[in-house]
C-alpha cells in the first residue's frame, strides 16, 4: 500500500460530491418511468381494530383511478418475513406471527397498510383514498411495554400470550449469582432507553415495474441492501425467482437502519405493478414516514453490578424488556438480543455477566435497527451503571474504569465475544488530555460564578461491528449469511470497475473503495469507478449496516484485487518469458524480480482481452470476484467525554463540548471517517438531549411530525473534538473495524453522566433521556423538595 495522494490514508475529496452538489443525484423519487401510475397507501388511523369489509367502489369510480387493492385482494401472497429466529430460555422458539403486507382481519398499529389506490396522479390517488370506507371495530390497544405486560392486557396476537415474543438469556446465571454472593458492594440502576424515530431526510419511495413481454419485475427502492430485499420479496412474499426480479437502490438519502428492512410497501407496489402491467410509483410523505418507517431503541432495564472492596467488577446482571412493535421487522428480534446482550462485558474484565431480555409485541410501529442497534442500549446502561458505582463507592470515575480495563488480547468475554485487539488506556488518555479533564474543576467554578451548573461526563466503550461471521450468526438464529461480495473488472485499457454488495447512502463508498483499489493496483484514482445498488449488476450482497462496509465489503474487494494481481502475474510472466513466481507487482507494474524487465497493468489487461500471445490454459479477461465471510466481529472502541452547562432556573442544558477518542481500525479516508464520527455523535446527542418518540395510551403517535419530534439542528450542537488512536483489526487484511455507529453508541451516556454531574450539587442523582429542559427542571424541583 503506497499511501500516495489518493491512496489509503489520504483525505481524498469524494467522487460522489459533484453530482450531489449540482442537483444531479438520482434518488428514487427522481426516477420516472414511461406510463407510470401513482400509488397511495391508505393507512390505519386506529392502533388496534378488527377489519370487516373495505368498501372501495367509490374510490374506484373517482377521477383518474385505475385500481384499488385491499388485503383481501392480496390473499395468497406471502407475508413479510423476519430474518432472525430467537430461542427462548426453555429451548422453545419465539412466537412469529404472520405479517400480511395489506392488513386482512386486523390492523395493529397506526400506520398499518390497509389499501393501495392507484391513479394517474399522486393527488388523484390520495383524494380517492378518502372515499374508501373501512368497516372496523376498535379494540383496546397496548402502546407501551408496561401496558403490554400488564395482567389481562389486550393481545396484539392471540398466539402470543402476555404479548411476549421471546424470553431470552445469555451468560452464566449461576456464576453471576455467585459473584453477587461474594461481592462487597452491589450497585443497582433502572434505565429507560428512549424510543427514537430514525428520520433519514429522504423519505422512503419505490417504483415497481412489470414487463409482460419478459416476465421481469424491477423495483427501484430506497434500500440499504437491495439483494436482501430481492431475497425476501422474491423468495418469501411474491414467489418470484431471482432472475426475474431486479432491485435497484439508486442514490439513497440516508438510512440509519430504517432502510434495512424489507417493507410491506415494496411488496404491495411490486405485486400491484404485476396486476396492472404498468409502473407504479409511491413516495412516502413525511407524516406517513413517522408512522411507517421502523422505529428504534425502546427498552426498560434494571441492572446490578457486583464489586469487590477495591472497585473491581465481579459480576453484572441485566434484565431488559424490549418493545418490538406490532410486527417483526427484518432484524427486529436480534437487535435487543445478539446485538445487545453480548456487549455487556464492555471494555471491562467483569468475569461473570448475565443478561435476560423479554421482548413484547405492542400496537406501535415495528421496531428495528437504528444507528448502533442494540449496542447503544447496552453501552448506555453499562456506562450509567459504572458512573453510579463510582459515586456510591466514592471512587474517581476515570480510575474505576481504568481499574477494570481489559489489557490482554485476545480476550474471551463471558458473553460469547472474543475481542481480538484494542488499547482502551490509549483512547482514555487521549480523550482526557484532549478534553482538558484535569482542568474541569476550574471551569465548573467559573460557570458557578455565572449561576450555571457545569458538569463533565465520560463513557468508555467497545462495539461489535463488521457484521458478521455467517456460521456464528447462523448458530444464533440468523436466516441469512452476512458475508460480502466484491468484484474487480480491469478493462482492456486499464481502467477499473469495482462492484460491491454493500450500499452507500452517505458513507462515501465510491471514494473509499476506489482509494483501496487504485492504491493496490497502482492505477489513477479517477480510473476506478465503484458500482453498487443494483441486483442486476452486482453478483450478490448483504448491504450496509452494522458498520460492516469497509471491514467486510472492503475486504471482499481487497481479496478480489489480490486475485486480479495473481492472474496478472501469470500473463506478465508469459510476456516476459519468466516464471510467475518471479514476478513482483508494485505501483501498477509487473516486474521480473531483480531486473528492470516489466509490463504495466494496462499492457497485461490488454493482453488478457486480446490474447494472441497468451499463456496456454489460462482464461482470457481480467476480472475477479471474491466473497468474504469474516472470521469474527470487529471491535471498535473509544472514550467519549461531554461537558454541559445547566441553567438551574430553566433546566436548559447547553452542550458545551464533546470530545471523542476513537479506535476504528485502519482509516482509509480520514475526512470521511471524521464525518461519520460527527454524524454518529449528533445522533447520540439527539437521543440524549432532544429526541423521544411518544405514544398515547390508545396507540396514537404523539410525536408524529418535525413539529413535535425534536431533531437535532445546527444550533443544538457544538463542533466536535475528534481524536484517533488506531489498533488494527487482526482478522481482516485491511485492519478495518468500522466507524458509522461509533458516536451513537458511545456518546449518550457521556452526555447524561455530564448532566447528572452538573446537577449532583443540587441533589439530583438520576436523569432520563432525553434530558429536556422540562425534565431537568422537574428533577431540580423534586430534589429541592
Amino acid at each position, binding site marked *: 500500500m503506497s499511501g500516495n495522494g489518493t491512496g489509503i490514508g489520504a483525505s481524498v*475529496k*469524494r467522487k*460522489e*460530491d*459533484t*453530482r*450531489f*452538489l*449540482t*442537483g*444531479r*443525484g*438520482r*434518488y428514487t*423519487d*427522481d426516477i420516472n418511468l414511461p406510463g407510470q401510475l401513482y400509488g397511495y397507501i391508505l393507512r390505519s388511523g386506529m392502533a388496534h381494530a378488527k377489519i370487516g369489509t373495505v368498501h372501495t367502489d367509490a374510490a374506484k369510480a373517482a377521477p383518474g383511478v385505475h385500481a384499488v387493492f385491499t388485503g383481501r385482494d392480496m390473499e395468497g401472497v406471502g407475508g413479510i418475513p423476519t430474518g432472525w429466529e430467537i430461542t427462548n430460555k426453555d429451548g422453545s422458539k419465539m412466537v412469529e406471527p404472520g405479517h400480511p403486507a395489506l392488513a386482512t382481519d386486523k390492523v395493529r398499529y397506526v400506520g398499518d397498510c390497509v389499501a393501495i389506490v392507484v391513479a394517474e396522479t399522486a*393527488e388523484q390517488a390520495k383524494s380517492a383514498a378518502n372515499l374508501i370506507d373501512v368497516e372496523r371495530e376498535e379494540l383496546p390497544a397496548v402502546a407501551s411495554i408496561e401496558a403490554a405486560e400488564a395482567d389481562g392486557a389486550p393481545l396484539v396476537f392471540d398466539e402470543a400470550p402476555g404479548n411476549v415474543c421471546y424470553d431470552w438469556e445469555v451468560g452464566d446465571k449461576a456464576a453471576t449469582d455467585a459473584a453477587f454472593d461474594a461481592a462487597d458492594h452491589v450497585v443497582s440502576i433502572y434505565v429507560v432507553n428512549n424510543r427514537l424515530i430514525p*428520520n*433519514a*431526510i*429522504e*423519505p422512503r419511495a419505490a417504483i415497481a415495474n412489470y414487463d409482460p413481454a419478459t416476465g421481469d419485475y424491477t423495483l427501484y427502492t430506497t434500500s440499504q441492501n437491495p439483494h436482501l430485499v430481492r431475497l425476501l420479496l422474491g423468495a418469501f412474499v411474491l414467489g418470484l425467482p431471482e432472475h426475474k426480479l431486479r432491485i435497484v437502490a439508486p*442514490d*439513497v*438519502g*440516508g438510512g*440509519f437502519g430504517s432502510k434495512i428492512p424489507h417493507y410491506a410497501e415494496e411488496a404491495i407496489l411490486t405485486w400491484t405493478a404485476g396486476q396492472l402491467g404498468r409502473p407504479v410509483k409511491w*413516495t412516502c*410523505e*413525511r*407524516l406517513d414516514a413517522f408512522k411507517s418507517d421502523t422505529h428504534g431503541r425502546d427498552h426498560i432495564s434494571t441492572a446490578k453490578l457486583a464489586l469487590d472492596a477495591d472497585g473491581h467488577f465481579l459480576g453484572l446482571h441485566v434484565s431488559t424488556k424490549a418493545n418490538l412493535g406490532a410486527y417483526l421487522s427484518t432484524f427486529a428480534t436480534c437487535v435487543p438480543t445478539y446485538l445487545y446482550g453480548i456487549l455487556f462485558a464492555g471494555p471491562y474484565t467483569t468475569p461473570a455477566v448475565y443478561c435476560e431480555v423479554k421482548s413484547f409485541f405492542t400496537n406501535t410501529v415495528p421496531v428495528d435497527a437504528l444507528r448502533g442497534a442494540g449496542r447503544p442500549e447496552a453501552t448506555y446502561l453499562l456506562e450509567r451503571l459504572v458512573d453510579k458505582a463510582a459515586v456510591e463507592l466514592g471512587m474517581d470515575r476515570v480510575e474505576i474504569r481504568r481499574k477494570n480495563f481489559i489489557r490482554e488480547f485476545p480476550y474471551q468475554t463471558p458473553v460469547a465475544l472474543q475481542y481480538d485487539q484494542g488499547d482502551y488506556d490509549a483512547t482514555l488518555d487521549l480523550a482526557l488530555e484532549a478534553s482538558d479533564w484535569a482542568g474541569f474543576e476550574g471551569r465548573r467554578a467559573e460557570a458557578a460564578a455565572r449561576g450555571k451548573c457545569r458538569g463533565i461526563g465520560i463513557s468508555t466503550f467497545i462495539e461489535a461491528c463488521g457484521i458478521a461471521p455467517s456460521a456464528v450468526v447462523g448458530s444464533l438464529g440468523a436466516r441469512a449469511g452476512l458475508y460480502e461480495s466484491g468484484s474487480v473488472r480491469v478493462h482492456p485499457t486499464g481502467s477499473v470497475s469495482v462492484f460491491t454488495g454493500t450500499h452507500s*447512502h*452517505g*458513507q*462515501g463508498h465510491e471514494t473509499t473503495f476506489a482509494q483501496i483499489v487504485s492504491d493496490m493496483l497502482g492505477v489513477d484514482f479517477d480510473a476506478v469507478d465503484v458500482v453498487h445498488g443494483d441486483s442486476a449488476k452486482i453478483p450478490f450482497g448483504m448491504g450496509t449496516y452494522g458498520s460492516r462496509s469497509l471491514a467486510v465489503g472492503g475486504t471482499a474487494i481487497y481479496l478480489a484485487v489480490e486475485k486480479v494481481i495473481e492472474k496478472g502475474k501469470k500473463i506478465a510472466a508469459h510476456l516476459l518469458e519468466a516464471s510467475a513466481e518471479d514476478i513482483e507487482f508494485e505501483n501498477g507494474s509487473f516486474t521480473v524480480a531483480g531486473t528492470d524487465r516489466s509490463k504495466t497493468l494496462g499492457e497485461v489487461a490488454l493482453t488478457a482481452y486480446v490474447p494472441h500471445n497468451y499463456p496456454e490454459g489460462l482464461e482470457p479477461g481480467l476480472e475477479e470476484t471474491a466473497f468474504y465471510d469474516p472470521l469474527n466481529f470487529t471491535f471498535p472502541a473509544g472514550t467519549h467525554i461531554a461537558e454541559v452547562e445547566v441553567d438551574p432556573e430553566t433546566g436548559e442544558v447547553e452542550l458545551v463540548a464533546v470530545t471523542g477518542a476513537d479506535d476504528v481500525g485502519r482509516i482509509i479516508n480520514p*475526512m*470521511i471517517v*471524521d*464525518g461519520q464520527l*460527527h*454524524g*454518529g*455523535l*449528533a*445522533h447520540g446527542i439527539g437521543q440524549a438531549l432532544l429526541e423521544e418518540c411518544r405514544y398515547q395510551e390508545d396507540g396514537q403517535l404523539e410525536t408524529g*411530525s*418535525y*413539529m413535535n419530534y425534536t*431533531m*437535532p*439542528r*445546527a*444550533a443544538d*450542537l457544538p*463542533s*466536535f473534538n475528534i481524536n484517533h488512536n488506531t489498533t488494527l483489526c487482526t482478522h481482516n487484511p485491511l485492519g478495518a473495524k468500522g466507524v458509522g455507529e461509533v*458516536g451513537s453508541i458511545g456518546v449518550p451516556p457521556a452526555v447524561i453522566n455530564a448532566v447528572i454531574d452538573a446537577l449532583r450539587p443540587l441533589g439530583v442523582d438520576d436523569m432520563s433521556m432525553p434530558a429536556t429542559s422540562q425534565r431537568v427542571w422537574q428533577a431540580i424541583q423534586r430534589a429541592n423538595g
Partner: protein
Amino acid sequence: MPTVTMTVNGMERSGTVEGRTLLVDFLREHLGLTGTHVGCDTSQCGACVVHVNGTSVKSCTCLAVQADGADVTTIEGLANGADLHPMQEAFREHHGLQCGFCTPGMVMSAVDLANRDSDPSEHDVREWLEGNLCRCTGYHNIVKAVQAGARAMGGGS
C-alpha cells in the same frame, strides 16, 4: 388551470398548473429539476430551498402561482458550467455533505446567508441554518463549509 411563467436558472419557463401546485412540484415534476428535494410536508427540513428573486425560500411552502414572473434559481443553476459555485466547492472541500439529500437546500440557504454576511461566525451559521435539517453530518462540516464558502464568495454570488 392557471399558466405560470418564470425565469428559472436564467431561462424563461412556462407551465399550466393547478392552483394548489407547489413551486417545488412545478420545478420537479413540470421542469424535471429534481435537484430540489422534498424531505417533509411541514416546512421544517429545508431540503427544498431555492432562491426566489435572490432570497432563499422553501419551495414546498410557496405556490407555483406565487412565483409567477419571478426569477428562480435552483441548485442546478448555481454552478458556472463545469466550475462549481464557491459555496458548492466549499461543501466539497470541507466534506459538508454525506448522503446529499439535504445538500441542495443547505447550499441554497448558505448562499443567501453569504450574500448578507461575507464572514459569518460559527454561531451565526448555526443560527441561520435553523430551517435546514441534516441527519448525516452532525452539521460540523456544514458549518465549516458555509464559513469558507462565504469568505470565498467575498460578499456576493
